[in-house]
């Protein structure tokens, strides 16, 4: 098995990110699987930037930890990331910048000098570095030439030629100055399927459009802004409208309005924006209007850590509202799932006529992963139920039904006139505050969510079928948990893993089956207080073992493995079995 982690560090504006992105595409086009991770400086220009690519001939589950290759554009990058090089890794550095010390192999490449000689300016260092890196990794020069052509073709032949020259200069330097370390090579291979590389934000945007989203209202916020930009550019091609609103309240109000008028509509935001949307979230629940809100979570509370990762908006997503305001909360596990599960998000919102919150996070929003060419027919599209002609004769917008869902008239329909309202209302939709009506309508709205908890396909199993130790995660932690479970299996500790794609309501049957197959269960998540753990415990009344991390970073597989080892060694007393059978 080939598995390599390349980390590139430098100053923001030096092209660290674009170098990493091109390397990522090169891996994907050579038919390898890729998982990237990046950090951002808080400033727009300058400050340290880092991009890392982990590639393998098998599925890559997490971002990885120690770098097999570290490419430094300056000395600061070495100071920041030098410790993260594998003891037997390879460091690429410019001898004009600094002299490194360590157990790794230090491989001197005069990046600045090569760039100046070839490109006659400092710009282009990243392409030289790409050449160096691709030669180290044994990639085909023809494939890279094609990539340069694809990337710079629009800027004209001269720019293509200049960039290829820079690439070739880096590539040739490595040819003439061999390094000692033996590294796996990544020549182009045949693959049964074609790969694409997307970020979570890109994947869910594509998925939303394919789900039928035709109105998007949004307000810029890190790390969700690129969803707004994506929609501004691409949604009109499908006949959809996009508005950059004056705030998140306006965004969600317009989304509710557009959906009331019959369009599938969405907004995307991060924690601070979701906090502002909460009042209208309640309105959508009360007036039973389908909407989809993406929350790309970041570190909180308040402005918190805007460019860092956290899963700490769960309480807000699940409980945020005054009154009992049922909603559905989904959490995709990787980039590919962003594409398919956002279609589920639209489907469920249409089917149950309620808000669906789609929880991603910074790590999922901006990392890129390879996955097979999307199949847009994989998740069949569901549309809201409309009233029949007979129903429109004596129309009741909120008519009581077995599953709580009532046919929804759209403005323009003859006989369907009703006023959607945030007031408690009768079946016809008129304000009604009687004790009986409030009880019945609250039960109707709650019923929909209860029915939704029986939906299939919103969890995934991994690892052992039956084991003493089980681990439950939700959202973007999926890959790191799977890799941790694999490490445990290799160490002789079988572990069963359940990943939740629907975190509210909890998929009843799947969870109960899982709980009955394990003795102890770890609940892993990226926040301080164990938000999911609390929800989970209070629903299933089982003792669990909480594993949390609150550093602004995703889990490393090693951290999952360490917790499993400690539980296997008997560190925790909490046992599921007795409690479950109660």
């Amino acid at each position, binding site marked *: 098995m080939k598995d390599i982690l390349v980390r590139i560090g430098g100053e923001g504006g030096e092209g660290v990110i674009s170098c990493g992105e091109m390397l990522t595409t090169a891996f*994907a*086009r050579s038919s390898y699987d890729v998982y990237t991770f990046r950090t951002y400086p808080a400033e727009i220009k300058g400050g340290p930037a880092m991009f890392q690519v982990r590639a393998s001939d098998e599925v890559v589950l997490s971002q990885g930890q120690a770098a097999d290759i570290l490419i430094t554009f300056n000395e600061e990058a070495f100071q920041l990331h030098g410790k993260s090089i594998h003891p037997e890794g390879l460091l690429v550095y410019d001898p004009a910048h600094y002299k490194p010390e360590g157990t790794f192999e230090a491989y001197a490449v005069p990046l600045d000098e090569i760039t100046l000689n070839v490109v006659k300016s400092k710009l282009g260092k990243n392409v030289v570095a790409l050449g160096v890196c691709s030669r180290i990794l044994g990639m085909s020069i023809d494939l890279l030439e094609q990539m340069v052509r694809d990337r710079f073709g629009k800027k004209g032949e001269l720019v293509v030629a200049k960039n290829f020259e820079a690439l070739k200069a880096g590539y040739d330097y490595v040819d003439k100055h061999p390094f000692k370390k033996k590294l796996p090579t990544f020549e182009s291979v045949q693959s049964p399927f*074609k*790969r*694409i*590389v*997307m970020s979570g934000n*890109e994947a869910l945007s*594509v998925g939303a*459009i*394919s789900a039928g989203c035709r*109105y998007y*209202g949004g307000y810029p916020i890190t790390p969700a802004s690129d969803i707004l930009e994506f929609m501004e550019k*691409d949604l*009109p*091609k*499908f*006949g*959809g*409208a996009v*508005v950059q*609103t*004056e*705030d998140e*309240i*306006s*965004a969600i*109000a*317009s*989304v*509710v*309005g*557009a*959906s*009331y*008028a*019959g*369009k599938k*509509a969405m907004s995307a935001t991060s924690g601070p924006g979701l906090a502002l949307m909460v*009042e*209208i979230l309640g*309105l959508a629940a009360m007036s039973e209007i389908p909407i989809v809100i993406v929350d790309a979570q970041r570190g909180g509370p308040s402005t918190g850590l805007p460019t860092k990762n956290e899963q700490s908006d769960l309480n807000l997503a699940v409980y945020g509202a005054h009154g009992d305001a049922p909603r559905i909360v989904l959490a995709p596990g990787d980039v590919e799932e962003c594409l398919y599960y956002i279609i589920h998000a639209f489907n469920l919102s249409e089917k149950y006529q309620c808000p669906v919150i789609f929880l991603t996070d910074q790590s999922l929003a901006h990392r890129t992963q390879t996955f097979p*060419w*999307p199949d*847009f027919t994989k998740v069949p599209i569901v549309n809201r139920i409309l009233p029949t002609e007979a129903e429109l004769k004596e129309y009741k917008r909120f008519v009581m039904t077995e599953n709580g869902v009532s046919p929804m008239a*759209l*403005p*323009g329909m*003859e*006989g*369907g*006139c*009703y*006023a*959607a*309202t*945030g*007031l408690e209302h009768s079946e016809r939709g*008129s*304000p009604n505050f009687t004790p009986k009506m409030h009880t019945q309508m609250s039960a109707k709205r709650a019923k929909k969510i209860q029915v939704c908890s029986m939906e299939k396909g919103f969890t995934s199993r991994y690892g052992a079928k039956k084991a003493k130790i089980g681990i439950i995660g939700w959202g973007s932690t999926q890959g790191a948990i799977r890799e941790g479970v694999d490490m445990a299996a290799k160490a002789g500790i079988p572990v069963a893993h359940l990943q939740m794609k629907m975190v509210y309501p909890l998929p009843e049957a799947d969870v109960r089956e899982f709980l009955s197959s394990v003795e102890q269960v770890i609940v892993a998540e990226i926040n301080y207080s164990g938000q999911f753990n609390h929800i989970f415990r209070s629903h299933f009344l089982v003792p669990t073992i909480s594993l949390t991390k609150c550093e602004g970073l995703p889990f490393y597989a090693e951290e999952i493995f360490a917790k499993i080892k400690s539980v296997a060694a008997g560190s925790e007393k909490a046992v599921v079995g007795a409690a479950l059978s109660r």
Partner: protein
Amino acid sequence: MSHTTTDYKSDVKITWCPGCGDFAVLNALYQALATMDLDPKNVVVVSGIGCSGRLPIFVNSYGFHGVHGRVLPTAMGIKIGNPKLTVIAVGGDGDGLAIGGGHFPHAARRNIDITYIMLDNNIYGLTKGQASPTTLQSFQGKSSPYGVSEENLNPIALALAYDVSFVARGYSGQLKHLTDLIIEGVNHKGFSFIHTLSPCVVFNDTYKYYGKKVTPIAPYENTSNKMRALELWQDKQHIFLGSFYKDETRQTFNERIRDIIGQFPRDDEKYFRELVNRYA
């Protein structure tokens, strides 16, 4: 088939206090809809919260009674969601100038093709008598026992400054005039704002005050002259009623959206292919 006012009356009992100015606005709306002969199924009346927020419930058309202060973005979503609909937003002075004041300039910037009737009663009526952004400083009430500390806002001045493309003022004491303004507003191409003096007879009865001050804008005034409109607003002796300003040359928001979408001949399959290819 032509419609009469009865076609627009819902069977929900009206809950406003006897003598409330909002009755006149509702009646003017019924008459305007009947005069324009709009099919109820193609009309959406949108509101926020407050006494006037209940208005859509009393109209037999599609309606949306949303949350406090968000009537304009909600109405925008509906108008974009289905551009064929006639969208009429209604709300009070507190709804539109206090909690929702931030949305007004943006609706104006977009020139979204909706009609916004502000039922200004110079008070928070539904919460029983607190001062609103348009309450005069001299008003002594529950939340202003020593008078109002802030100066009152003037909605017409704001609308003119924000460059709303149709700015008018009506009065619930003059039903026919108000009806005509609503018709003019609905027929206006772009965002129309009808500031409507609609006194609250319980907490801040301004009928007498307005009765003495309201004056029609002279028919010879030019509604394309914004400087003149500002002069009329600043007049201390009169409260002018009628059209202050009108500009129908501007593109509406829906037209701009239509133009953007129009650049792309419909071919979903092709665009999906291009989209995914970007990431290969």
